[in-house]
C-alpha cells in the first residue's frame, strides 16, 4: 500500500531524511516514534506530497508521489492527513468542515456530501455538534472533526502526526479511541505518536526514527521490551 525507497530530504543544507525505506501493507498499523526534530513529521508530509523529496521514491498504492505534479492531488484524496494542530477551517461549522472537500474536490451534490459528513461525524461521536464552529469545540472534539474530515474522503491510507500532543490529558483518550476503532476496522495507518499504550494495543509494528534514519523497527512488543539500539533504549526510558 505504501512504499518508501531510500528517501532523502533536505531543507536547504539541512539533511533531514537520510535514506528512509519502509513498507506498509494494506490494513497494517505502523507507529512511528522518535525524538522531536528527528524527521517524523517530515516523513508524513513527504508521503502526502506536502514536501518534495530530493532523492528516492515514494509509492502509494502503486502510484509515485511527486509533490510537483498535478497528479499528487489524486493521491492526496486517497491519503488522509490528521495534523497535530487540528487545522480545522475556522469559519466553517463541523459539518461544513467535513463536507467542503466532498463538494469541491469530489464534486458531490450538497445533499450527498451532507449525509456523508453526518455519517462521519456520527462515527467519531459528534452527532450533536454538526453546527458548531471550531472555536466552540474542545481540542478533543476538534481533532475528532479533523479525523472525520479526512475519513469523509474515503482514504486508503491515514497519516496521523502527533494528533494528541496538543490535547489536555483528559481529552487524549477520546481521540485514541476513535483511532483504535479505525484500526480495528481495517484502515491502513501510519501514526506518529508518543502514546505508548496506544502503540501497544493497536500497532502491528513500530519504527524508531533517529536523526533522519530508521534506527530500529520491529513488532511492538519487541521494540518496547527488548530494544537493541542504544538511542532507542534511552528514548524509551525518557518517555516512560
Amino acid at each position, binding site marked *: 500500500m505504501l512504499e518508501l525507497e531510500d528517501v532523502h530530504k533536505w531543507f536547504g543544507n539541512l539533511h533531514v531524511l537520510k535514506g528512509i525505506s519502509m513498507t506498509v501493507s494494506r490494513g497494517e498499523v505502523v507507529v512511528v516514534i522518535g525524538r522531536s526534530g528527528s524527521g517524523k513529521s517530515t516523513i508524513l508530509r513527504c508521503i*502526502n506530497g*506536502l514536501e518534495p523529496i530530493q532523492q528516492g521514491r515514494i509509492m502509494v498504492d502503486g502510484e509515485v508521489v511527486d509533490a510537483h505534479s498535478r497528479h499528487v*492531488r*489524486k493521491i*492526496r*484524496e486517497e*491519503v*488522509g*492527513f490528521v*495534523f497535530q*494542530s487540528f*487545522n*480545522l*477551517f*475556522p*469559519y*466553517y*461549522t463541523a*459539518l*461544513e468542515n467535513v*463536507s*467542503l*472537500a466532498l463538494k*469541491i*474536490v469530489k464534486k458531490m451534490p*450538497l445533499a450527498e*456530501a*451532507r449525509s456523508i459528513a453526518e455519517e462521519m461525524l456520527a462515527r467519531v461521536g459528534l452527532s450533536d455538534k454538526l*453546527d458548531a464552529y471550531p472555536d466552540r469545540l474542545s481540542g478533543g472534539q476538534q481533532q475528532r472533526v*479533523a479525523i472525520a*474530515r*479526512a475519513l469523509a*474522503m474515503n482514504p486508503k491510507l491515514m497519516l496521523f502526526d502527533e494528533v494528541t500532543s496538543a490535547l489536555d490529558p483528559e481529552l487524549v483518550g477520546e481521540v485514541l479511541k476513535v483511532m483504535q476503532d479505525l484500526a480495528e476496522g481495517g484502515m491502513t495507518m501510519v501514526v506518529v505518536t508518543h502514546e505508548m499504550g496506544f502503540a501497544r494495543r493497536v500497532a502491528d509494528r513500530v519504527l524508531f526514527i533517529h536523526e533522519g534514519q530508521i534506527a530500529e523497527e520491529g513488532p511492538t512488543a519487541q521494540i518496547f521490551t527488548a530494544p537493541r539500539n542504544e538511542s532507542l533504549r534511552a528514548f524509551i526510558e525518557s518517555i516512560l
Partner: protein
Amino acid sequence: MSYTFHWEVPLRNLPQFLWGALATLEMSGVACLLGLLVAVCAALARLSKHRFLRGAATAYVEAIRNTPFIVQLFYVYFGLVVVGVNLEAFSVAIITLTINCGAYSTEIIRAGIQSIHRGQTEAGLSLGMTHWQVFRHVILLPTLRVVWPPLASQFIATMLGSSVASQISAEELTYAGMMLESRTFRTFEIFFFITILYFLMARLFSFLFSLTGHKVFREAWGQL
C-alpha cells in the same frame, strides 16, 4: 422671530433630488465594488512574505487612514491636473472614494484572513484541493462571510462620505442640494430632504448587504 417653511421648494424639485440620489448611489456603489477588489489585494499584500509588497500595502493603508478624505479628494483632483490628466469631477470622486474605501476595508479583511493559518491551507491541500480552491473556499469566501457586517458599515460610511465630493463639484445628491439652495435660499427644507434621502440610501445599502450576504455565502457555500 418666525420662519415660514416652504416645503413646496424641495417638493417641486423632487426630480433633481432623485437624480442626485441616483448619482450618489452610482458613485458610491462603483467605488465600494472597486474598493473591495483593492482591499482583497492589499490585504493579501499586507500578509505576503515579500517585504516590498507588505511595505507598499502598509504605506497605502496608513497614508489613507491618517489623512482627511477631503484632502485626499483635492490631492487626487489637482494632482491629476498637474500630471496632465483631465477627468470629470465625478470620475475623480469615484477614484478617491475607491482608494479611501479600499484602505479601510483592507484592515477589515486582513483581520479576517489572519485567523486562517498556513496549517489550514495545508489541510485543504491534503484533502486534494488545488491552491486556487484553497484560496477561494478556505481563505477568501469564508473571510468575506465573516467580515461582511463590518464591511457593510464601511461601505455605508463611504456612501455617506461621498457627499464631500460636492466640494469638487461632482454632481451628486449634496451638490444638487447646494445648487438648489443657492437659487432659492431654502436651506433647511432642502437639507431636511437630503437627510431623509441619505438615511433611506443607507438603509438600502444595509438591506442589499444582508441580502447578498445570505445569498452568496449561505446558500452557495454553506449547507444550512
